[in-house]
C-alpha cells in the first residue's frame, strides 16, 4: 500500500493530503476534500458525471488518480458560482432552458460546458454537441441540455414547443 503526500488547489483553496496510490481523483474529491458535487456514476469514464476541470481541461475524475493531480488547480461544480449565489453562465443557461431533472449528471455537464466556454471565442455548436456526447443523462433530458448548450454558442434558444423532438 503506497502512501503519497499531495497538495491540490481545489476551488481556490489549498488541500494537503496523504493518499494511497490507488485512490481515484473522484473519490479523493468526494471523500477527502468534501466536494460531493462530484458525482460518480459509472466509475469507468463513460457517463461523464464526475467531470471536473484540472488546470483548465475538463477531465473525468474517475479515470485520474489523486496522486496525478498533485500540484494542479481543480475546479469542481461547487467552485463555479459567485459567493453571492450568482450562477455561472453555464449554470444559468441550464436553469433557464430546463436542462436538468434529477440533477445527477448535471455537475459533469456543467464542467464540460464551462471548460469549453472559458476561452475568448465562443465554441462552435458542433464542438459543443460532440463534447456533450460524453455525458449520459438517464432522465433523458437531452433537449433541455442541448438548448442550454446552443445558447452558450450564441444561438438564441427556440421555444420549448419548437425544440421538442
Amino acid at each position, binding site marked *: 500500500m503506497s502512501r503519497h503526500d499531495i497538495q491540490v488547489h481545489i476551488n481556490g483553496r489549498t488541500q494537503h493530503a496523504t493518499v494511497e496510490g490507488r485512490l481515484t481523483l473522484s473519490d479523493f474529491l468526494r471523500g477527502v476534500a468534501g466536494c*460531493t458535487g462530484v*458525482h460518480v456514476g459509472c466509475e469507468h469514464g463513460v457517463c461523464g458525471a464526475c467531470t471536473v476541470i484540472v488546470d483548465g481541461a475538463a477531465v473525468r475524475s474517475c479515470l485520474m488518480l489523486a496522486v496525478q493531480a498533485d500540484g494542479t488547480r481543480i475546479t469542481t461544480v461547487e467552485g463555479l458560482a459567485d459567493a453571492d449565489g450568482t450562477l455561472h453562465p453555464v449554470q444559468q443557461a441550464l*436553469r433557464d432552458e430546463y436542462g436538468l431533472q434529477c*440533477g445527477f449528471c448535471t455537475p459533469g455537464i456543467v464542467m464540460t460546458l464551462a471548460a469549453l466556454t472559458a476561452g475568448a471565442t465562443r465554441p462552435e455548436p458542433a464542438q459543443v454537441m460532440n463534447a456533450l456526447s460524453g455525458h449520459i443523462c438517464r432522465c433523458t433530458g437531452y433537449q433541455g441540455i442541448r438548448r442550454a448548450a446552443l445558447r452558450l454558442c450564441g444561438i438564441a434558444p427556440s421555444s420549448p414547443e419548437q425544440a421538442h423532438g
Partner: protein
Amino acid sequence: MDDARTATMTGRYIGQRVPRKEDARLLTGRGTYVDDVGVPGMLQVAFHRSPIARGRIKAIDLSAARALPGVHAVLTAEDLAGYKVDMLSFSWPSRWCRCRCWPAAA
C-alpha cells in the same frame, strides 16, 4: 373551485414556464444524494461477485475477508435467510420466492 382561483392558477402556472425550486442547489453541487450522506460511525459496504458467469457454489471461505482489519461483517445469502428481502427475490426460483415478483422499474 371558484372562478377567481382558477384565473390565478391559469395566470401563474398553466402555459407558463415555471422556474424549478431545486435547480440552484443541484446546479451548484449542493444536492444530497444517497451516496453524499455521511453519519457518525457509518460503515462502508463492498460487494464481491462471482468471478465466473455460471457455476454451482459448493462452499464459500470467508476467513480471509473476516480477518482483514476494520471489517465489521461479511455476509452471504445464508445470513439473509432470516430477513424478508423482497427486492432481491424477483429473479429467484419460485420455491424460494416469498413475495410477489416485482418487475425492474427501469
